[in-house]
């Protein structure tokens, strides 16, 4: 008589973290509220020196918590997958940031919508938790990115990043992915691997909403976007994005090109035009058109996110957007032109930037 194979459970949640005592309790509670079964939640604490592991053990039991020596996020996740035998026991694994707050139906929706026959990975909708000025800016950015950009990407099959706070993988593809490439933005790197190695399609599930913490200070914001853009160009360099004939290459080519065109317009073409023609009102037209369109898009995002409060900081958004652009070009010069940032990194970019989440953080 043949032994029956034990039935795989649908979805495991793995939460890696380093010194997350301020947020881990809330993250686990939020996952439970959102429909994730306690026995399907696993925490891996990467060399935490605080009470991260103790708090997680209180909530989940010690057999669901693993402490590892300093390994970085990718290394910690890899060890947890092996230790908890996730690949054999589950069809899907969700890797979440330790500061995630899941909407009340998040896991119920994921478990209902995830389709292993059509997709190898999936992502939900990320939104910013209330915080400081940067969080207001991010409400606009995330709403625009999820509502418009990611929907278009999903339709075309070219989702370019499965964001850290909401990344779900079919467990059989995990072994084909290299989580330890030393990228500064491992979620982008992993997503590009899915495309490059033709591993399958990525599902976008916008109804599954999760919330993340964004920097509270200007200097943390700069540090974060420097890492993002350096990581982006590491991926561009490593996988030669924009240099092959594929949908994702074409899309990335367009994204880079449109940013370069805009930068050139601001830094070269507009000053040149003004200098040559002396038509100074061209500057006024340029500025007014930009402001009108940017205001309309920001207002649309605020309405869509039900966060009209973000409009109070609109003029600052305009400046932050230019800061974004400047750092994007800086990263291009550092990584592409000067071939920098090749070394591996096993650090945690979130160190020292977490804040406690209060009840009613999510509207």
């Amino acid at each position, binding site marked *: 008589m043949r032994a029956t194979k034990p039935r795989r459970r649908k979805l495991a949640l793995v939460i890696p973290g380093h010194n997350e005592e301020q947020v881990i309790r809330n993250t686990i509670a939020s996952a439970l509220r959102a429909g994730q079964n306690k026995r399907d939640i696993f925490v891996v604490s990467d060399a935490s020196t605080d009470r991260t592991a103790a708090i997680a053990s209180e909530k989940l039991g010690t057999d669901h918590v693993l402490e590892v020596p300093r390994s970085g996020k990718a290394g910690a996740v890899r060890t947890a997958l092996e230790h908890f035998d996730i690949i054999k026991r589950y069809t899907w694994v969700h890797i979440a940031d330790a500061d995630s707050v899941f909407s009340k139906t998040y896991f119920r929706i994921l478990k209902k919508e995830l389709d292993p026959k059509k997709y190898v990975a999936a992502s939900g909708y990320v939104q910013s938790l209330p915080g400081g000025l940067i969080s207001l800016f991010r409400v606009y950015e995330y709403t625009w990115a999820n509502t418009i950009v990611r929907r278009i990407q999903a339709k075309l099959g070219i989702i370019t990043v499965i*964001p850290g706070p909401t990344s779900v993988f079919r467990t059989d593809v995990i072994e084909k992915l290299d989580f330890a490439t030393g990228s500064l933005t491992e979620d982008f790197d992993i997503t590009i691997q899915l495309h490059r190695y033709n591993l399958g399609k990525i599902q976008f599930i916008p109804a599954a909403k999760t919330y993340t913490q964004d920097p509270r200070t200007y200097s943390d914001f700069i540090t974060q976007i420097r890492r993002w853009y350096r990581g982006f160009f590491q991926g561009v360099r490593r996988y030669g994005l924009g240099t092959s004939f594929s949908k994702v290459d074409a899309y990335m080519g367009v994204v880079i090109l*449109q*940013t370069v*065109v805009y930068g050139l317009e601001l830094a070269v073409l507009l000053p040149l035009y003004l200098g040559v023609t002396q038509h100074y009102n061209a500057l006024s*037209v340029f500025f007014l058109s930009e402001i009108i369109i940017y205001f309309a898009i920001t207002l649309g995002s605020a309405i869509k996110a039900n966060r009209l409060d973000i409009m109070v900081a609109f*003029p600052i958004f305009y400046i932050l957007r230019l800061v974004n652009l400047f750092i994007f070009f800086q990263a291009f010069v550092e990584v592409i032109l000067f071939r920098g940032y090749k070394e591996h990194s096993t650090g945690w970019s979130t160190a020292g930037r977490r804040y406690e989440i209060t009840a009613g953080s999510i509207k």
Partner: protein
Amino acid sequence: MNYTPTPIPQVLGAATGVGAATVLPETGSPLINSLAIAVAVGLVVWAVMYFILRKKAQ
């Protein structure tokens, strides 16, 4: 989380601006410049007020 400066809005704005700027300078009126200055000043005042009120609220 996008890893590129938010795509599309800037290009929309820039394209509209460049498009309009190539047509309007011939008929350019001081009104456009005055309007642009008023908007710029308005945004600066708005930003300063935002920071003052934010500080007071803290």
